[in-house]
């Protein structure tokens, strides 16, 4: 089977789910697919989905790699808040834009390093290790902003949140670029396979000569890095750092995006592209609910119902059953459906 065919098959369930959701939204809101150029950039609901989904998409990139190592990073939402706060306070205290970005990304890397060392060196379970920063992180962010929303007016920083490049909003350009870079990094080198090996069996990988601690730490650092970029975008978008609310519960959305993307929480095989599709599925649901005009009391119920539906469709049991029926229909070539 060709490479593209293989990828296509891997991403097929996510594409179908996304198409169904977009179809449903366009029934509820006919102007959904309208795109126009306004102020030199594309403008429309589809662009909103790509744009608003940027933080979760970025978090999902890092989360995918962490989950592939059989870990989990609960701290990403709090790291977003910390980095947003750091960016805002750096720019308001007079640092230049490049310095601000460097400091902020550095803080994100430090957060990742902290998580990574707890997991890889001290051997603390990932869910507990990252819970520490999840709880403490928001407090740190509040300390940086003194509990208030720290606003800024630096055009350069604001551009990252609401400027546009090639007709696309900056956040969209950033997450797509980040996604491609990470996907290339893990798939064009042996890195991806090593990560999967660690996720499947850490002990065996170590014995086989993989430097497990370095890989694990690198995975959490990547996650911290992605969270810091997401934090910068979230703060730049509203021109202020909201320590209480920035990235609140987004760690759960990021994990959900990875799960919808079909990566197992037990580690091993992973797909960054599928997780990004998962993030877009989540955002399509969010935007769709807003456009459809349902009363807000229904938001969470609708979201939950759609997600349960997607997860049921992906469940191995159900796929096994479906495969069984399709096999009995198409009896002559049973080998085909086994390829999965």
């Amino acid at each position, binding site marked *: 089977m060709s490479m593209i065919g293989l990828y296509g098959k891997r991403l097929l369930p996510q594409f179908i789910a996304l198409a169904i959701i977009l179809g449903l939204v366009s029934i509820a809101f006919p102007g959904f697919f309208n795109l126009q150029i306004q102020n030199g950039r594309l403008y429309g609901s589809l662009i909103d989905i790509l744009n608003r989904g940027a933080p979760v998409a970025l978090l999902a990139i890092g989360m995918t790699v962490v989950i592939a190592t059989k870990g989990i990073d609960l701290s990403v939402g709090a790291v977003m808040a910390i980095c947003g706060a750091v960016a805002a306070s750096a720019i308001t205290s007079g640092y230049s834009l490049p310095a601000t970005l460097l400091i902020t990304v550095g803080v994100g890397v430090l957060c990742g390093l902290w998580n990574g060392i707890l997991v890889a060196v001290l051997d603390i379970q990932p869910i507990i290790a990252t819970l520490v920063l999840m709880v403490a992180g928001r407090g740190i962010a509040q300390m940086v902003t003194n509990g*208030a*929303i720290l606003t800024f007016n630096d055009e350069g920083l604001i551009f990252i949140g609401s400027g546009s490049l090639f007709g696309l909003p900056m956040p969209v350009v950033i997450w797509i670029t980040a996604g491609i870079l990470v996907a290339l990094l893990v798939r064009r080198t042996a890195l991806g396979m090593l990560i999967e090996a660690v996720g499947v069996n850490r002990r065996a990988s170590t014995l086989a000569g993989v430097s497990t601690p370095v890989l694990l730490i690198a995975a959490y650092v990547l996650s911290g890095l992605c969270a810091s970029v997401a934090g910068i975008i979230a703060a730049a978008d509203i021109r202020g750092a909201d320590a209480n609310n920035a990235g609140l519960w987004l760690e759960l959305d990021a994990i959900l995006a990875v799960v919808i993307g079909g990566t197992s929480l037990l580690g091993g095989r992973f797909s960054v592209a599928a997780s990004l599709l998962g993030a877009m599925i989540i955002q399509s649901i969010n935007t769709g609910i*807003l456009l459809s005009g349902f009363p*807000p009391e229904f*938001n969470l119920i609708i979201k939950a119902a759609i997600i349960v539906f997607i997860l049921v469709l992906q469940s191995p049991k159900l796929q096994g059953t479906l495969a069984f029926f399709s096999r009995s229909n198409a009896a002559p070539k049973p080998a085909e459906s086994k390829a999965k």
Partner: protein
Amino acid sequence: MKFIKALSCATVLAGCVFSGASAADMTVGFSQIGSESGWRAAETTVTKQEAEKRGIDLKFADAQQKQENQIKALRSFIAQGVDAIFVAPVVATGWDEVLGEAKDANIPVILLDRTVDADKSLYMTAVTSDLVHEGNVAGKWLVDTTAGKPCNVVELQGTTGSSPAIDRKKGFEEALKGHDNLKIVRSQTGDFTRTKGKEVMESFLKAENGGKNICALYAHNDDMAVGAIQAIKEAGLKPGTDILVVSIDAVPDIFQAMAAGEANATVELTPNMAGPAFDALAAFKKDGKEPPKWIQTESKLYTQADEPQKVYEAKKGLGY
């Protein structure tokens, strides 16, 4: 029993003799929820300022959003024998016991900003804002401003199910009743945050013909309005002129927007809950006059005519 009562009365009287002459020698314990929002920080600042103004010794305890910390703080205030206790209760239930202890010690308790589900005899009074009234003031402003012209309103609600969201919606709708020119065409929750306010407003603009069908925005708090104003600008419309913006809370940033002509009106949720509480307390200590069980703070309307830049400067330092 009677003897004990008489004795405790005597203690109170004695206390009055010693501290009643001026409020200056009074010690008041204040148990604050924590720093959950900018408004909360401003309330803390203003409370400290008001105490200083009156020469009252304020003992401040930050509960970090935990009721157990507040109960501990109250017990320590009682042990220290303060003259009065102010509490901004983090939750409504579970206060009976500790309030009873304060009552037994004859220390009056005043609730700030929120109320509790406890017997009214357990506290002296509650100083709060009327959330329904706030929504009502915002609605009235819109009714007066549109003056009978047809106007489609979009509403950014607070967190679904929270009492400010329910009450501010109710008050606004009551004000609009009987004015058929005003119609709420869309209403969604923006979770009281800037990010969600912006995101939801973006979808409102798309859904209502690029915003051309929208004449006014009502946001349950200023933060959502600030987010929505950015969304309106990015859609190529002028907030404040193309779309009227009215919101509630009166945080400093909305005054900046008002000074720039991008927001039209805001209803103040005053951070000065302590001022009226101190006044009631002083009156009580002076001649034993019990205040009413509920003291409503003023819900003041600010518009662009109220020198928003000046208000911004005045509010900026309060810690919002």
